[in-house]
Structure formats: C-alpha cells, structure tokens
C-alpha cells in the first residue's frame, strides 16, 4: 500500500509478529509487490486480535477463511 513507508511496515511486522528484520522485510516486499501477504493464521478470535492491531497501526488487514 502506497501510503505506508516501507520502514514503518517492516518495523511494525518485526515488532508485532516477533519476526527477524529479514523476515519482516520479505513480508513487507510481498505486501508492496503483490498487494497482500498472509501474516497470521489461526482461530477466528486470535485473528481478530491481529487484524485489530494492524488497523491500530494504520495498516489494512482483513480476515479470510482458510482455503479461500
């Protein structure tokens, strides 16, 4: 997504999802180039917590059922 700077996205991914800097950069590039990346998988409640956190950081996350 254009409005978020790459360093900010990388830092949020690194901090919130406890990724290494390299892992976070790979995800950031995936989002930038493909428009999306799967950041987290699990039960509905846990996913809602993650999506809410991303919205808190100004990053657009969505919930999706597995297999879709």
């Amino acid at each position, binding site marked *: 997504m*254009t*409005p*978020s700077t790459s360093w*900010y996205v*990388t*830092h949020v991914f690194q901090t919130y999802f406890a990724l290494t800097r390299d892992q976070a950069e790979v995800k950031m590039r995936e989002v930038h180039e493909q428009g999306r990346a799967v950041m987290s998988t699990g039960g509905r409640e846990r996913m809602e917590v993650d999506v*809410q956190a991303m919205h808190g950081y100004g990053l657009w996350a*969505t919930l999706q059922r597995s297999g879709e």
Partner: protein
Amino acid sequence: MSARLLGADDFAAPAELDRDARDHVDDVFRALAGLEESLAEPSDPAVRRVLPSASRDDHEIADEFRRLTEPDLRSLKVARLRTMWEQLSDEGAEWHVRLDEALATASALTDVRLVLAARLRLETDEDAERLHAEIDLASHAMDTDAHEDLGVDPERVWLGMLYQALTWLQESLLHCLMTGEEEQDV
C-alpha cells in the same frame, strides 16, 4: 485557503494558539472520538483508510468486527494524535520524541498521511510519482518566478508538500528507531 481533511472545514491553524483555538482543538478531538456515531462502514474514503473494513466481501464479518473494535481503535488513534498535538504545541523550536513513544508517534503520523493520501487520491506508486512531478513543477515555477498557468491545483500542491514532509519525518523517525535497536542488539 481551506483544506477539507477530517471534519475540518478550515484547517489553517493560527500562528499562535490562544484559548479559543485550544477549545476548538478539544472539540475536534471530541468529534474524532465520535462514539455516538453509528458503527457502519464510513462513507468518507479518508475515514475508511483510517478505520478500514476487516473483510472485503463479507459484510456480516466486517460489520461485527467494526462494532467490536471501532470504539477502541478510535480511542487509541485519538489519544496518539492528541499526544502529538500537545507535544507540538509546547514552546520551543525542537520536537523531542522519546524512543518508547516513537512507534506511537510514527503510527499517528501514518493516520495523518492516510487522510492526506485519500484527499490526494493516491492509490498506486504511479499516483505518488505523478504528485511528486506536479510538486517539482510548481516548486520550479516558484523558484524562477514564472507566472504562466501550469495547470496545477495550488491546494493539491500544498497538501502534497505536507504529505512529503510527513513522509520524510516518519522515515527519519523510523531510521532512529531501527538503528537504535541494532545498537542495542550489539
């Protein structure tokens, strides 16, 4: 000049904040908190960027998520903006951000940038590049005192410059944050 941002008809702030202006600011923050509003998908594209839908195609999921999370998200975002505003309202030429507040400050800057991006209709990298070109053209015209009509909207250029300045500010803040962390790792 007036710039339509979030619920502000005229966002041109006075050079000095008097008591009336502070009261006005309080009203703005109260309106942003807007908890009495119905929790439906916002019609304003800028608000939709700050408080996006949690599902692209399932309205039931999106509405339920909004009902459960939007009050907390609004409070979080308003509190961060208010902290930044209060820091910027302090006397003095320098703005100090503590390391433990840096991410919250970067997130507040992100929300402001999201609103500006929506008003500037920035969707893709190409849109951003076009904006940079328009600003370069306008800056060059100002430097050379050219008076010909450039076909650029001055309000768009002004908001675009603000967007660029906030982008630079956020990047430099993140630079401090990320290099600071590397040093701590060593």
